[in-house]
Every structure is written in structure tokens, then in C-alpha cells.
């Protein structure tokens, strides 16, 4: 099952690399996060003591979707923010990196090799999204995808990762999402667009 979920999560992450609309990208990432939360809840087997991290993941997914959804609704772009790299080129870059992962990454002790590849792939896709997309909301989604990579890795590890770490990561990501959303709103207020290309004044 974790293998299927890993494949689905990577496919959804690839979708974020190519889609144009922020709302579609948010829907894809939210689906990815909910999938992972669903796996976490399923793995608790109804045991209450295992619920906090799984419930935290579910709440995180809903909270981030809400925070960023409100951010998108409040900052309507007059035209879509174009990325510096065309969708096809972004897809090629992402696919090339994904295909290189099995050759570059050694066996890390994951029971399921697909889960390992999926976790690393999500980390890489998150970086690709954050660095190749110009819309600030999409850059925030890049962070969420990368964090979902760590979550997928943790879920494939048969409850090895302690609750303190899982809950701490969830809390930190929520905090970052709130702060990043505030930045997005301020950037939109200053430039009339959530396009990070406006932020290119600082250089030497």
C-alpha cells in the first residue's frame, strides 16, 4: 500500500511542477497531504495512543489548505504568474532528476524501495517547485511537498519516528505556512502581484 501511495504522491508532485493555476496546485498538494494523513490514520488500527501524529497530519493538511486557500482568494492575480521556465522544460528537469534518484541514492534501510525513492523524489520535487516557479504561493507549496517527503519516509518506517518529532515537524510547518502566507499577502500588497520576480533588487 505504501508503495502505491508513494507513487501517487510523486505523480501529484509532478503535477504541481507543470500546472499553471495556484488553486489547482493547492488542490494537488492538499490531496497529497490527505493521502499521507489517510495512511497514517489507517496504520493506527484504531489505537488511540497512535492517533496524535496521524490526527496532527490530518489537521495540518486541512489547516494549510485553508491558510493558503484564503491567501489565494484574497490576492486575485489579474493574469497567471508565468514561471521563468516553460512547463515542458520543468517537467523534463523534474523527470530527469527523478530518474537519476535510484542510481544516486544508496539503500537507506527502508523496507519498501518504492517508499524510499518516493520520499527522496518528493524532497527533490519540492526543491524543483520552489526554485522554478515564480508565484509565491507555489513556492510555499514546494516546501509542503518537500516536508511531505519526510512524512512519507516516516510512514514507511513502521512507527519508528517518535511522536515528539512528528508533532514538532507538523507544528513547525504550520508556523512556517502562517508566516509565509503573511509574506505572500505583504508582497501582493506591495507589488500588486504574488510574483517573486518582483523580488530581484538585491544583488552584488
Amino acid at each position: 500500500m505504501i508503495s502505491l501511495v508513494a507513487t501517487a504522491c510523486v505523480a501529484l508532485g509532478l503535477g504541481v511542477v507543470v500546472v499553471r493555476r495556484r488553486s489547482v496546485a493547492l488542490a494537488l498538494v492538499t490531496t497529497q497531504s490527505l493521502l499521507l494523513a489517510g495512511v497514517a490514520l489507517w496504520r493506527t488500527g484504531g489505537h488511540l495512543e497512535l492517533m496524535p501524529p496521524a490526527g496532527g497530519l490530518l489537521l495540518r493538511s486541512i489547516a494549510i489548505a485553508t491558510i493558503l486557500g484564503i491567501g489565494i482568494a484574497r490576492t486575485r492575480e489579474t493574469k497567471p504568474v508565468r514561471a521563468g521556465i516553460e512547463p515542458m522544460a520543468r517537467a523534463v528537469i523534474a523527470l530527469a532528476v527523478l530518474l537519476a534518484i535510484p542510481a544516486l541514492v544508496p539503500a537507506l534501510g527502508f523496507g519498501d524501495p518504492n517508499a524510499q525513492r518516493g520520499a527522496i523524489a518528493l524532497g527533490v520535487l519540492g526543491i524543483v517547485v520552489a526554485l522554478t516557479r515564480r508565484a509565491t504561493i507555489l513556492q510555499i507549496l514546494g516546501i509542503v511537498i518537500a516536508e511531505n517527503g519526510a512524512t512519507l519516509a516516516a510512514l514507511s518506517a513502521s512507527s519508528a519516528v517518535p511522536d515528539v518529532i512528528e508533532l514538532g515537524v507538523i507544528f513547525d510547518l504550520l508556523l512556517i505556512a502562517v508566516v509565509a502566507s503573511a509574506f505572500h499577502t505583504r508582497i501582493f500588497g506591495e507589488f500588486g502581484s504574488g510574483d517573486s520576480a518582483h523580488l530581484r533588487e538585491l544583488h552584488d
Partner: protein
Amino acid sequence: MTDVLITWLAAGSIATPLVSALGLQAARSENTAHRLNRVFATVTALVGLVAAGAMLTGSSHPSTWMITDSASAIYVSVVTVVALMSALLSPAYLSGAEGRFFASDRGVRSYYLAFYGFWAALIAIPVVANLGVGLLVVEATTAASSVLVAFSGKPRALEAGWKYLILTTLGMSIAFLGVVVMFVASGAHNGGIAQLDWSVLRATLAQMPHGAAVAAYALVMLGLATKIGWAPVHNWLPDAHSEAPAPVSALLSSALLPAVMLLAWRLRDAASHAIGNTAATTPLAAFGIFSVAVAVPFLWQPMAWKRLLAYHSLEHMGIITVGIAIAGPLALAGVVLHFAGHALSKALGFYAAIPLYQIQPDASRHSARDVASSSPATFAAMAVTAITLAGLPPSPLFFSELFIILGGIATGHVLLAGTLAVLIALAFIGLLHALLEALQSAPGQDRQATPSVSRHHTVPILAPTLLIAAALLALTASAWLLPASEIVRRLAQGTT
């Protein structure tokens, strides 16, 4: 003093700034907030310094949640001193600044909320006994400090804050992936959070397959590198340090970078047994020397004062990292001295920017000129900073750099030490060039200089300059005692 009491003091030094952050929200006016800030800062600093003193005299046995060894003591004391000075100078910055990132009626209180939250996290990083929790705290510093970087709400500050937020958070995501790999690959599924305790991490890594241990180490170290700002993942550093409010720039440079570096140091010590000392140390040496090399060309360019200091952060973090990589007693004495001397002098340099921008508003974008005639006190602060950072005797950094280079030669790292010596010499000339530029007048240049500004209307910088200059001289005087000191002996035994 008992270990339990030391642990409670360490916990208190984290809790006090958090309480202060909340207490300051009760202030009904800006003036009240500034007055409360002075009280809270003093109390917080007292608790921090008492805790640091207790750690130095204690037995340094790690408890469940806290590690209170010599390294923690040194970091807590320096972070506390810099945070206190930044807190006391914050009203001077805030009185002449507009904070458009927050709603105008909450600007000052929001600044203090983020500031004291940042202070608490900075104290927590060196004393938290667990790698995983330490990384969580590091990520929390990003949330607090990024809004401080963007406090002015100006486009350049927004750019700097945004870049800092995105890049360092991505880095920490990579680090967390490394932490998960540690749990998965160590196979000890019932070990819980304690598997990542600094005192246990060595055994955890030893249980892992070699390839997995190397991969986990590389992922966490890469994540930490983005936060420390080691080249080539330093892209955010010059922007954030130059655009943040001056008291926050001081905290970023003098406290945050070295505190996160302590995590990298402890991780190296924990991993050197499992993956081999060469594999564990080479990345540190490479990051360190590359950071100094990348910084040097920028130190030669005419540049805005704070931006110049930011590139010096890159250089000096590189020097400290090379010292940690070398790891002999002499080099570690250099690391301790360099950390303290850099923190004090760099903080003073950023504080000097507060009156400097009052005298020359365009000095935020261009190199400062003719400061000596328009504000001798500001120039004195800049001169103390420049002389110290350049490593010109009697700067403590002269001795620390000497210790690190000689320590490298003594331990057989001749090429590394030689390369570092050449790069330091090049940086030295660059900084003196900047200082001379600040002395010169520029008759042909269109300036918004206001040399007639009364010294009564500028931020008092003379007192901090004299205090920090005295502290730097005291550091220099104590330099010769350090290599044979108990502190260095404990550090040489390892930080985990």
C-alpha cells in the same frame, strides 16, 4: 552546583524570554513597551548568564532534555550578551523606523514578540540534548527571524525575508529527511526520541549500514549548511543580514549562525566514529574553506556597510568551521576565541549602522564615506569593528586565526591551514580598504549626508563601543590562557 539545578537554570534561560515576549504584549503604548523591554532584557540576560556560569562549573552530564557542557555554556553566554545589547538598542532603531510588515498599531509589540521568541530559540539550540528537537528549534527560529528581517516592509526587506524563509525552510526539510533516515536505518524501532540524544547518537549511527549513515549525515549536514549560510548555499545570508533591523542583524550574525554551527559540530563528533573521521570532517573543511574563498572577492568591493558585514559573516563562519574541522586543542582554543570576538565586534558593527543611517541615509545602499568628520563616535564603532574583524593586533581575532592556522599545522592539516592563511590575508586587505573608504570624503559624489546632525540627535553609540572594545581587549588578554584551559580540554574530548 547539582546537575538538576543547572538543568532548571538552563530551562529558565529559555522560559524567561518567552515570558518576556508575552509580558510585552500587555504594553499599551510604545514608550511603555520600550521601558518594559529594558526590564525584561536585563532579567532575561541575568538568568542566561547565571545559567551559563553554572554550566561552566557543572559536571556537564547531559540530562533527558538538556545538555549543559562547556560548549553550551560558551554559546549561551555569548548569545545572551549579544541579545541583551540588541534588546537595549532596539528602541533606538524602532524610534526612527517604520514597521510596515505588521499593522501599524501593533508594530512595536509584534517586533518584541518575534524578538524575544527568537532569543528563546537561540538559547535553546545549544542546550537541547537531542538532534531532532534541536532541528525543530532551528526551524522555529526561521519563523521568528524572517518576520524580523522583513520588519520594515520595504521591498528589499521583503525580498530578503522571503528568500531567507524559503531557502532555509527547504534546507530544514532535507535535514528532517536525514533524521527520518536515522530512525529507519538504525533499526532500533523502540528507542524513541532518545535515539537522537547527543549522548546516544553515536551508538544510533553505529547501528546503521555505512551507506545509510553517510546519507543521513549528508542530508542533515546539508540542511544545517543552508541555515548556517555556508557557501555555496549562502544565497540568503548577505540579503537577510543587510536588510534586517540592525539589532536583529547582530543576532543573526553573532548568535544564530554560530549556534546552528554548534549542532553541526556535535553531529560531526557523533558521526566520526560511525562513518569515519575523514568522511565526517571533510564536508566541514570544504564548507569552511569554500565560504572564506567565496567571501573574499566581495570584501574588496565598495559596498554598503551592513552588506559588507554580512559577507564578513560568511568569511568568519568559514574560519570557525575550519577550526572545528581541524579539532586539535590549539585550533579549538581559536574557535572559542573567534566565536566570542566575532560575536562582539560584529554586533557593534551592526549597531553602528543605526546612527550611520541617520547621518547618511543612502549608506544603506552605498559604501559609507566621510563618517569620521560627521560622527566621530560612529566612526570609532566602525573602526573597532573593522580592526577586530580584519584580525589586526590587538584584535582577539588575530590570535584566534593564528591558533587555528598553527593548530592546523600541528595536526598535519598543512594544506588546509596554508589555504586559510592566504584567504585571511586577502580578506584583511579588503576590510582595511573599506575602513579607509569610510574615512575619505567624496566631494564629487551626490550624497544625502547630513553632517550638521547634532550628536544629541543620533543614537548613543560611544558607550557600547567603549564597552565592547574593553571586552575585546579582555578577550585578547585571556587568549594565551585558552589553549591550556579546562574549557578547551573538555571541548577537545568531544561535544557529545
